[in-house]
């Protein structure tokens, strides 16, 4: 039986890693992957608290999040491919047309 604080600490580290990846990486694919990290950190939390309260709702919700994340990655990668085809790059610093 793993103790709850350890799990929460793990999920916090995972989330922070994801945040760092979203804010700092230049590669669009890696940004998407970092978003996956953040979502999975949330999933970990949901499952952990579900275990704690003996309530299955959290686990059901985690399944939903996984499904939504899969759809999100599908769309996100499609956008990245289209950007690459147009701009020959996937550096999101250079994708800044929508500005003042």
């Amino acid at each position, binding site marked *: 039986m793993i103790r709850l604080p350890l799990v929460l600490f793990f999920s916090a580290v995972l989330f922070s890693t994801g945040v760092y990846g979203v*804010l*700092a990486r230049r590669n669009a694919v890696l*940004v998407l992957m970092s978003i996956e990290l953040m979502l999975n950190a949330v999933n970990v939390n949901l499952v952990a608290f579900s275990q704690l309260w003996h309530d299955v709702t959290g686990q059901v919700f985690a399944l939903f999040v996984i499904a939504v994340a899969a759809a999100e990655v599908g769309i996100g990668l499609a956008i990245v491919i289209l950007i690459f085809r147009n701009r020959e790059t996937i550096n*999101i610093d250079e*994708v*800044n047309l*929508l*500005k*003042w």
Partner: protein
Amino acid sequence: MVVAAETLSANAIGPGFSKLAWVVAVLPVVSAALTLFFGKRTPGRGWIYGVAAMSAGFVLSVLVLWHFVQGGGAVGSSVAWFTIGPLHVEAGQFVDGLTAIMMIVVTTVSLAVHVYSIGYMHGDVRFTWFYVVLSVFTAAMLNVVIADNLIQLLVGWEVMGLCSYLLIGHWWEERINSNAAIKAFIVTRVGDVPFLFGIFVLIAATGFHSANIQQVGELVGGADVSRGLVSAAAVLLFGGTIGKSAQFPLHVWLPDAMQGPTPVSALIHAATMVAAGVYLVGRMYSVFLHAAPEVLQFVGIIGGITMFGAALLALVQDDIKRVLAYSTVSQLAYMVTAMSVGPAGRDSAFFHLFTHAFFKALLFLAAGSVIHAVHSNYMSEMGGLWRRMPVTFWTFAFGSAALAGIPPLAGFWSKDELLVAASRGHEVVFTLMLLTAAVTAFYTTRMVMQTFLGVYRGHGEPHESPAVMTGPLVGLAFGTVTVGFLGAAFSRAVFFKWVFFEVPEPVTFVPWVATLSILAAGLGVVAGWYVYREQPEPDPVFQLGWFSSLLVNKFYLDEVYMNGIVLPVRDRVSAAAVWFDRNVLDGVVNGTARLTRDLALGTDEFDRTVIDGAVNGVAQTAGFTGGLLRYLQSGNVQRYAAFLFVGVVVLAIVITRV
């Protein structure tokens, strides 16, 4: 129009046609409208409407008179007209014997003039318009005659003045004609203003309740109205008479009015309109009777001066129409003077008005026939016409004899009644009337002899006028011979059973008065015949030194008016008015304009700086702020994400703290 007819008499005779007197006044209005709108498209250029209306009006008038011949009483009816505060004014008719007689006079003379004008005005440029105004005039005069209240009477009175103005100036292309029209209009207006105020005074005397003539007449005799008020009203009303009936000192317009076409002179300036002033005094006679006695004395003095003065002026005229004009002034003054001697004089005055209308209209129309033939107004260019124009001569001779007062023509009988009325205690009036009668006979004889006897002194070959002109002459001559017997004592004087003031006066034939009257007339005629039997050149009336120049210059009244009133008004007052207009009124107007302009400029400045400044300032501030804020929209997704996380953290902190 007739809503409530009420018979004012206790007589058993019904109102008959007298209820329909107003129709006679409406007929000329209809004919005027028809002539105006369809006249030029009608064969004969529109005279048919006026003649038809006058004929119908004449027949109806005779039927109205028939009611009084049978001994009927006065008939009145009216409808509500308008209300001002407590004053309810009704439009309506009041028909008594006097009204019926006046209707006969107006329709007869108007019919004669309408027919006569077909010939006299033939080929005139404004022929149709002439008939329109003739009809309007007749309507107005009939309205005056049948009016049962003072305001309705005033309306007709003023419309007559307008028509008079229009017809005197009918040939306005010549300056002298339009000047005469303006003079007539303005001089009569001088009298109309007091008349208007007289009406106000009488309405005030009723307590502002009524303008009805009968009510006013009954009221002034009562104790409620002060004598001073009644006297003031009488004097003011008489002002209207002085203007309209051309009495001294406002008689100056009538001789000049002869510039109008001769039929107009016959209708308006001899028989009807100028008689309206006399009619007014007679209709409002109870006001004059209940005024202070000085008022009637004043009426007598004015009438006396006019009567004798105008007769003298007629002596020296060369223009045949001006002789007749002064004669008209003089004869009207006879009536006015007779008004001053009491109810008997009033009735005699109306009898004289009645007969005078016939013979004076006849004289004017006959003079018009002569002028038509000779193409001149001047008797010095006439003479010897009796062979060439027999019908005109004989009718003119009858008219002249009536004017001179030769029995048994109409003028003798009516003048006799006037003299009889004056002979009862009015010696001065009586003497003056006799003197005037002699002078009248003299100038009438002079006129006839200068025009028709001796040798012809004019140009061309004068011919008798067409039948359409001589027909009315014969008709009026018939009237001149016959109507006098209506009032003669030996033929029972039926006229005075129709026309009387309150009670019929007994009519008596006074032999010594008649003898004096015939003597005066005969003296004038014989003297006239003696002086003019040889047609002396130059005319003796111009050989009397200062007296002739006094008369030729019309007592210098025109000069007095010109230098005393017209020129000062024209030169000084109008100059002052121009100065006031240029400096004060224009100053006010220009000042207002300048003030408005300055205000507008100030408003414009305020609009540009303050209002526009505020609006632009707001816009600029918004634009500047937006310019600053737009740099947040960097297009960098990661920067947005960073803001998002910072925001979430801040929210989390805030929520957990709270």
